[in-house]
């Protein structure tokens, strides 16, 4: 029993994703003529391992281009990893077949960032929410109307909205429809990719509250991807920080905010905008996020790190335990 509950619901083992740019016409011609060029490869996600226990809310934080969305999409099963495997309840998802594979796919659903682009403008709400459960025989056609109405009520919308089209809703309502669509196949695990970034502050609060209510009601596990530390701190049990395709720090929420370990985490926390009662002087870290096409050698953060040593430019630091439940990838922890 204890061992069963200790099996994480989702586990990523050594996940990597590389995107290779296809050669365009001019490059193909040059190649024919004998010029050889190295293909440009983006290491979007670089050897990431992450286990998420049932019932947990994990916040995945990072700046644009750090690979957080790519990791989320691989975990949701929308992208095939270049290397590594995703385990669902201890079993490699790639080896599952038939009914097991289907169940594993349905159990993990995704909520997308853009509430405008992620709903088909030509479908009625009834189709948007009801299509998947109908295909998977979770509901009969006769009961579909009632079922969709129930789903809408769950996310705080009127059951009478099911005949409408997406353009008849506001941004906040569309978010709710996206959530209802994910919930319609009774998932156990939700990947929320910047699910509230496009909303106004007062609407964001409504959706955050909805996420927390649903977690209680349906025993959901979340991977909550966001660039907003305030939001992530509010709802997560554990936080994972990524920088240029690698995890730099992983820690329970309270401990991370109390004593951030990695220099990048420290910089992020210091600069995250928060409500303050005094005007403050901004003291930014220098430099830009490097291109993932040509990441710096060694520790990816060393060109911007105020504490960088010679070793940081040579050797990539491993993600190591610094205290129970906390991992950090920084050479400074070796001393």
């Amino acid at each position: 029993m204890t061992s069963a509950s200790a099996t994480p619901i989702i586990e990523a083992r050594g996940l990597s994703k590389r995107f290779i740019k296809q050669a365009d016409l001019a490059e193909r011609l040059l190649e024919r003529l004998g010029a050889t060029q190295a293909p440009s490869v983006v290491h979007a996600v670089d050897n990431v391992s992450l286990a998420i226990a049932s019932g947990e809310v994990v916040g995945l934080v990072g700046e644009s281009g750090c690979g957080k969305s790519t990791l989320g999409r691989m975990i949701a099963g929308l992208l095939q990893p270049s290397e590594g495997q995703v385990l669902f309840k201890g079993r490699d998802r790639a080896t599952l077949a038939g009914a097991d594979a289907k169940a594993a796919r349905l159990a993990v659903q995704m909520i997308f960032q853009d509430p405008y682009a992620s709903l088909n403008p030509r479908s009625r709400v009834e189709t948007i929410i009801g299509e998947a459960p109908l295909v998977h025989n979770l509901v009969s056609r006769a009961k579909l109307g009632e079922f969709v109405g129930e789903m809408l009520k769950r996310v705080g919308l009127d059951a009478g909205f099911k005949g409408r089209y997406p353009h008849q809703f506001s941004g906040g309502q569309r978010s709710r429809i996206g959530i209802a669509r994910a919930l319609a196949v009774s998932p156990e695990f939700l990947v929320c990719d910047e699910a509230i970034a496009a909303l106004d502050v007062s609407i964001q609060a409504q959706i955050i509250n909805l996420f927390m209510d649903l977690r209680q009601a349906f025993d959901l596990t979340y991977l909550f991807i966001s660039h907003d530390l305030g939001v992530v701190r509010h709802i997560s049990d554990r936080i994972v920080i990524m920088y240029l395709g690698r995890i730099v720090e992983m820690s329970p929420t309270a401990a991370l905010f109390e004593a951030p370990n990695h220099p990048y985490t420290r910089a992020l926390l210091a600069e995250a905008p928060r409500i303050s009662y005094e005007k403050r002087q901004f003291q930014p870290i220098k430099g830009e996020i490097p291109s993932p096409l040509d990441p710096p050698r060694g520790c990816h953060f060393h060109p911007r790190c105020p504490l960088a040593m010679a070793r940081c430019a040579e050797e990539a630091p491993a993600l190591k335990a610094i205290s129970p439940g906390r991992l950090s990838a920084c050479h400074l922890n070796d001393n």
Partner: protein
Amino acid sequence: MTAAAETESRPTLEVVDLKTHFFTRAGVVKAVDGVSFAIAPGEVLGLVGESGCGKSMTGFSIIGLIDPPGRIVSGAVRFKDNDLVGLPEEGLRTLRGNRISMIFQDPMMTLNPVLRIDTQMIETIQAHRDCSRSVALGLARNALMQMGISSPERRLRCYPHELSGGMRQRVAIAIAFVNEPDLVIADEPTTALDVTIQAQILHEAQELCRTKHTAMIWITHDLAVVSSLADRIAVMYAGTIVEQGNARDLIRAPLHPYTKGLLGSVPSANRPGERLTQIPGMTPSLLDPKPGCRFRMRCPRAAAECTASPSISMPIPHREVRCWRPLIAEQPA
């Protein structure tokens, strides 16, 4: 001495009862409906509100960028000695980019994609002052350096597409500040940027205002950014300013229920995991708004008197609020 103090305290910009309406086929959209505020040299005013509240339209109205079917219906925009409302296009042209500049959310609204950065910056400088190309180039280089851009010579020879988003926005801000304007209107300039880049830009903007006494209007939906950047904050809701005052006082003890609701919606550090106080409902349409307080449908304190439009009152010194039932009882002593 007194004369000097007087010129010092004279506001750079004074907006008085500004109304910008859009005359659409569906009816009149009252995007800006009676907005008044003033801003002193070197001061940063945070203009905060949610989408569609008219905060950007207020900025556009000041600088004269309202296109038909929109029109400034009434009110005054006093900039130093001029009233900008009704000023002919030619008069506005000598001010724009020179005495008043604007920074947009998308830097590509400022930058021309087919011209090099140096061409664009020199053009901005030479449009407003009589100087040689080489002098202008020197000024452009200094402006970039001030924005914390490393190797400005190389960046000057770049096209906009060769720069990253954060770099482009910094170039756009450098262009806005290059003629040392008296007023800068910044419309959500850091919304699309990452946290570390945002901090860099806030830092540079803060420095420029402090050292050059430039007045700045920072338009944003992000209370967190504004609370640490602005001297004063004005909160807009449905076309009107519902509350304004000193940033610290307003954040610490809001007077208007909407401001309080907005602050409650921000996941704050001290109560993770708890439910956020949410404002029920949505922002109302600005198409033919009904009389009465526009927030009353969503307001927890709404009462019978709220069906009449509230006027601006000053229940405590230096604080303005447009509410019949402001939150005075909850003010700390």
